[in-house]
């Protein structure tokens, strides 16, 4: 029996705007998010009681207000995980108050996947993704100790650099594999709101005299006397830099892991989860996908103008060309001992040792163990696919089944079963609107 409600996974800009649109159309919505608060990573807030102003406070307020106006129809469960759908269309939610139910549709709004290329030493403590440093800064309200280097490519390097600087901790250096400042024409044609934000970031970094080294790659990271020693390459000139923390970021990708193949109920991705267009587009995309779901369910849907979505799409294309480069690392040049898959400890050498029998999408997983670890391949499959493209065309297959993330057996069993009847799930939202 189908629950009367629609499940929205992710309480970031796309998920919340989708939920609000559905609720405005009279639908009942369940929103789940793994974080203790709504807002997603972009609107993550300080959880430690610090009262300094948040970044994007105004946008966040506006989004939360739209959702708050529909509170009666939106049931929000924070600190919960969406484990996945089974083939009969049941959804399993685990966490603080887990439950199993059958939604009539699902909107996936779990945000983008952050890409980090493997490099020698990328597994050392102190080396994190740029996204990790950013979430940490936002939720702890204070920057980490020690000297910080930011490296890789993409606009997030500058966003984090500026946010750290504004929090009183300018990064020691930013290494950008691309040459974003050599594209004044493309930059000038960016929409005003993006240009303003970018200019703000750059001015903050310039005022704090943060060295920005474009066209520079990190070749390797080593641990030396409790610090991180980075070997960099700037067009054939090699340098060694010592820092305490390194944030790596090589772009964002859509998030297409773990959903049941041919689900029996409509499942649509929204926002960066579907296509990485940034937070402004995500709000709009949430509206659009909600309307799409309403249409599929045969209920009246609001008309959604796609003009602003198309503007953001064009802007993202321009940003991509501004940050274009020929790889933060040449994957083919990685030393044999470089770890590709942390979970199963598989290196470049292990990949090279595979034989013809192993080079099918299935055997690359089963025998190669690539993509078989606890992260389910999120951090290695992109690179394994590139490295094996010549032999196989496609890399190891991505799982299309639950669980979307590792889940404790106790939590699978503790989830209350609401799938068999019309019983509504207890009003147990634990989030507060502030």
């Amino acid at each position, binding site marked *: 029996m189908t629950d009367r409600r629609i499940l929205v996974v992710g309480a970031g800009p796309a998920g919340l705007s989708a939920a609000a649109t559905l609720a405005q159309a009279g639908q009942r919505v369940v929103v789940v998010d793994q974080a203790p608060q709504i807002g997603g990573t972009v609107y993550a807030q300080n959880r430690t009681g610090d009262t300094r102003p948040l970044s994007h406070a105004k946008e966040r307020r506006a989004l939360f207000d739209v959702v708050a106006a529909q509170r009666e129809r939106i049931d929000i469960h924070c600190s919960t995980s969406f484990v996945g759908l089974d083939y009969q269309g049941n959804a399993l939610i685990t966490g603080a108050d887990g439950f199993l139910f059958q939604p009539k549709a699902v909107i996936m709004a779990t945000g983008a996947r952050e890409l980090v290329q493997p490099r020698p030493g990328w597994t050392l403590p102190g080396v994190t993704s740029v996204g990790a440093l950013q979430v940490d800064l936002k939720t702890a309200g204070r920057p980490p100790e020690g000297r910080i280097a930011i490296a890789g490519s993409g606009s997030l390097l500058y966003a984090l650099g500026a946010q750290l600087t504004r929090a009183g901790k300018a990064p020691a250096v930013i290494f950008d594999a691309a040459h974003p400042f050599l594209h004044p024409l493309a930059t000038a044609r960016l929409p005003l709101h993006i240009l303003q934000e970018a200019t703000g970031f750059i001015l903050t970094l310039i005022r704090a005299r943060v060295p920005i080294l474009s066209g520079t790659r990190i070749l390797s990271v080593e641990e030396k006397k409790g610090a991180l020693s980075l070997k960099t390459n700037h067009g054939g000139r090699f340098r060694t830099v010592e820092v305490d923390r390194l944030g790596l970021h090589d772009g964002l990708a859509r998030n297409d892991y773990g959903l049941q193949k041919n689900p029996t109920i409509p499942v649509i991705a929204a926002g960066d989860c579907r296509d990485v267009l940034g937070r402004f587009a995500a709000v709009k995309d949430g509206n659009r996908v909600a309307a799409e779901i309403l249409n599929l369910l045969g209920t009246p849907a609001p008309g959604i103008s796609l003009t602003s979505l198309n503007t953001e799409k064009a802007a993202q294309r321009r940003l991509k060309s501004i940050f274009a480069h020929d790889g933060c690392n040449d994957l083919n040049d990685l030393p044999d001992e470089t770890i590709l898959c942390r979970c199963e400890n598989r290196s470049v050498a292990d990949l090279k040792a595979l034989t013809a029998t192993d080079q099918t999408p299935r055997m690359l997983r089963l025998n190669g163990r690539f993509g078989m670890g606890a992260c389910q391949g999120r*951090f290695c499959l992109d690179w394994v696919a590139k490295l094996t493209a010549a032999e196989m065309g496609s890399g190891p297959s991505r799982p299309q089944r639950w669980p979307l993330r590792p889940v404790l057996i106790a939590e699978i069993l503790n989830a209350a079963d609401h799938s068999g009847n019309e019983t509504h799930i207890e009003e147990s939202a634990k989030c507060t609107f502030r």
Partner: protein
Amino acid sequence: MTGHILWNDRDVPYEQGETLAQALNRAGITHLGTGLAGQSRSVFCGIGQCQNCLVILEGKGPCEACRVLCADGLAVSPVGTPHD
């Protein structure tokens, strides 16, 4: 509100709203255990995806240190090494 978590029987203070990883990190603990090849387990992705910061919550099982909020008296230890 603040309190303490236990890391291998060592008291580690936290502030309300901090994750296990944030509290441990602030106490200078970045090495959260040992991976398969002897490499350190530590925070990497920060959003519960990469499984690199896995620790054992006493009585509950493995969990991501970057995702779980501190609570007073919570006992946390490194992940055991597989038997093979």
